[in-house]
């Protein structure tokens, strides 16, 4: 058991290490031209080794080296108070809260839509194509408008951002749940009929439980894009707070290290959320006796 895990982990670790090495090489190569121009301006002729060493510690590198990003993250998480505007935890918390609110609203909306669609044939035929079409629209494009328009009506703060996350995350849940609610085989449905179960009972005792694995699979997708939604939604609010605001502020002032650290924290956040939802799904599926293997 343990050795199987180790065997699975080795290639991943090797590839990750290779990526880190490539990152260092890339940082050295991309930052070298700046060092050369500095040396030219100062009239000095440092050795190549010296210049390469300097590429690892530039103030505003083209590509910051991994250790610079790590130390920036440590600096802005552990060494700053959480309430401080410069703390990445503070910004991540803001992004997390709006993406969580949007994710919950989106999941609820998705489930409700799926139930309606499964139980109403007219809506299944008329609404479902539009739900699918709504996702071929680059919906993030209207993020700034939703923010500004809701702002004009007086809705501010968390809710407009959560709307964007909701819009992105309802879709996988709705589609997955339609599939899940329709997944009981006809023999199961026939069994319910022989019990003379009402449609409400069939829903509660057969369709809903069978749809749970589908629900959690879609929720994993939904939670990941709700983070994307929250980050993009923070862009047009004028870079006040949140990881998206950090990205924007970093790009205004050319603070590449800040951009990269915000990006890494956002990625860790998204990955953690996906893992948590995955665990939750495994736990629920196991308790319901639905786990396979």
């Amino acid at each position, binding site marked *: 058991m343990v050795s199987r895990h180790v065997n*699975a982990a080795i*290639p*991943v*670790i*090797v*590839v*990750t290490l290779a*990526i880190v090495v490539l990152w260092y090489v890339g940082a050295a190569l991309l930052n070298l031209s700046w060092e050369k121009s500095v040396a030219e301006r100062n009239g000095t002729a440092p050795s190549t080794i010296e210049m390469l060493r300097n590429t690892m510690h530039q103030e505003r590198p*083209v590509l910051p080296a991994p250790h610079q990003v790590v130390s920036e993250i440590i600096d802005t998480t552990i060494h700053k108070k959480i309430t401080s505007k410069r703390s990445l935890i503070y910004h991540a918390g803001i992004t997390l809260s709006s993406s969580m609110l949007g994710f919950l609203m989106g999941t609820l909306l998705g489930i409700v839509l799926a139930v309606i669609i*499964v*139980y*109403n*044939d*007219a809506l*299944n*035929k*008329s*609404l479902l194509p*539009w739900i699918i079409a709504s996702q*071929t*629209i*680059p*919906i*993030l*494009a*209207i993020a*700034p*408008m939703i923010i*500004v*328009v809701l702002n*004009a*009506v007086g809705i501010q703060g968390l809710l407009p951002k959560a709307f964007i996350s909701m819009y992105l995350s309802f879709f996988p849940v709705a589609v997955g749940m339609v599939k899940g609610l*329709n997944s009981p*085989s*006809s023999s199961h*449905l*026939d069994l319910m009929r022989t019990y003379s179960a009402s*449609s409400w009972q069939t829903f509660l005792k057969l369709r809903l439980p069978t749809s749970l694995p589908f629900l959690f699979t879609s929720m994993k*997708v939904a939670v*990941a894009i709700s*983070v*994307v939604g929250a*980050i*993009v939604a923070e*862009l*047009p609010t004028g870079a006040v707070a949140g*990881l*998206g605001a950090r*990205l*924007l502020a*970093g*790009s205004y002032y050319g603070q*590449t290290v800040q*951009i990269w650290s*915000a*990006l890494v924290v*956002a*990625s860790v956040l*998204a*990955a953690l959320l996906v893992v948590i939802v995955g665990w939750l799904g495994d736990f629920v599926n196991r308790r319901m006796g639905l786990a396979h293997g």
Partner: protein
Amino acid sequence: MAESVNLHVITGEPQAARPYRFRAMERFLFGGAGMLALLGLLLQAPWQISLATLAVALIAFLQLKRSRLLAAIATGAMALVAANSLIDLVDQPEAINAGFWCLVAAAWLLAWGCVDQLSAIKTLSRSYRTVLNVLIPVLFGLWLLILWELLTRGLNVPQVLLPAPSQIGQRFMESRAILWMDFKQTFLRAVLIGYAIGCGAGFIVAILIDRSPFLQRGLLPIGNLVSALPIVGVAPIMVMWFGFDWPSKAAVVIIMTFFPMLVNTVSGLSAAQPMQHDLMKTYAASYWQSLFKLRIPEALPFIFNALKINSTLAMIGAIVAEFFGTPTLGMGFRISTEVGRMNVDMVWAEIAVAALAGSLFYGLVALLERIFTFWHPSVRS
């Protein structure tokens, strides 16, 4: 009439998934429409429309059993006629009273009944079913637009909040030149070029690592993880590296589309059955022969899945990347600046372009999928 022959014929598809249908629904819809029309008549709505709506609703209510298609056509046509005359009325403030809104609701219920009837039609004819499957969502969308138009203009919703579809259409026609330039900048350059390079690179890397199980086991989990990450965040970095013009947007699109393609192609290449591999071996097929003749065709459903996912990702990537800086051109740029100037109708026109381009792009990929994977069960059925 062919329709009555096909009526109520069970199609042979597994019907078990949907044993439940609100039988009272159609009576409720047409009865409700009739009552609302009557109420509208009493509340001083224009009597011509009210009477006509009332008549059609009554006939549909009573004669429903004869033919669903006839009922659908009659109610759908009446709903459209009523909507048309209501839209003509909506700009006269004295016409907007309780009776007006009763008629709006009546026409809407009629249209809903029409869609309800259409979707209840069971038929064996394939082309007939295709027509229905297209017609139903189109009618639904059309009614969404009609309601949007009536509500925004009838209730005097501020234009900043939500412009009426007709205003958006007008703005669309007026600024076709600007929209076309933005479209060229964002879609024809950033999206298409980035999409082609990103998907191509993902595919080629998948083929390259195909012979190394070690690399596959290393890259797959990472690729899966990266697909879940907020990659749009690299946009500011790409803008710094490649400048304000479209190459930086294309770069974002490349990064966003690369990983879904890689992951899907790798899992698609392992989709062929052992039996099929054995067959290729008995033919003494070389690695490349079995790759091109067996494994890539078997992987096509996976590859097209990635192409479809990527078509929407590419649009999102290019537009969001423009929020971080562009030359004064591009759909994302236009959206963010026009929002700032409160020209919401222009924003909506731009969104309409994006929606149209996105759906057509997706539709094209889906069409290619049907052509290339005609043998696959999901297409055949």
